[in-house]
């Protein structure tokens, strides 16, 4: 596939993924009990979006991203290695959020771990670092 088309696919998938990841983080981090009206419906809605849109977008992010790195001969540039490490951490955070949403969508669920309340900040920080690394390529 043409490099620019692949890059466009990668960037589009990243935008969809980060949007869905942020929604999942805010939903999981939001305080409230399961018997609050509308809470279960909100969590279920975010979980369905995560299953049908955000998770497939993550697969496209990885597939297209690694292909771009190979096609563009970017390995082993330090900025790319650091970026990959951040994406790995964000992907793991996505997995944890996704599992937590599945758990929280049930009335008798235990509350999520307290550190997950910082997930939105971690995502914003990770995305800023990735954009700086990719655009400026300081290393």
């Amino acid at each position, binding site marked *: 596939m043409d490099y620019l088309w692949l890059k466009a696919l990668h960037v589009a998938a990243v935008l969809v993924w980060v949007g869905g990841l942020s929604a999942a983080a805010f939903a999981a981090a939001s305080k409230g009990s399961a018997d609050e009206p509308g809470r279960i419906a909100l969590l279920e809605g975010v979980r369905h979006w995560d299953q049908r849109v955000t998770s497939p977008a993550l697969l496209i992010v990885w597939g297209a991203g690694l292909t771009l790195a190979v096609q563009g001969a970017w390995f082993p540039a330090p900025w790319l290695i650091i970026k990959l490490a951040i994406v790995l951490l964000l*992907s793991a955070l996505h997995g*944890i959020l996704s*599992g937590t949403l599945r758990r929280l*969508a049930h009335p*008798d669920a235990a509350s999520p771990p307290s550190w997950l309340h910082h997930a939105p900040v971690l995502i914003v920080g990770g995305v800023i670092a990735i954009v700086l690394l990719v655009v400026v390529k300081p290393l």
Partner: protein
Amino acid sequence: MSPQQRAAELMQLRRMRIVSLIEGSTLLLLLLVAVPLKHLAGIFVATRIMGPVHGLAFLAYTWMLIQTVSGGGWSRSQTLRLVIAALIPCGAFINERALARRQAMLEAAC
């Protein structure tokens, strides 16, 4: 566990088993077909295709494992066993059996 919770858990276990089988199968294809083709017949394209396919399958498998365990209901020792098996070659098949047993237990409890 409520019926909806059980249904969601069963669906997750089914998906995780499928991804485990895909990960294990792509590793076997890579090791038993692609690598011999490369070294014995000089066909490099097999590893060039199967290498990234297995890499992506491993990423999906590890991600699903994190997602499954984060859903709760797993003890520390069970989680540790799943993670260790995920890191050894063909461990996905061991995990698939463990997941199948858990699925059978949940189905029996219905």
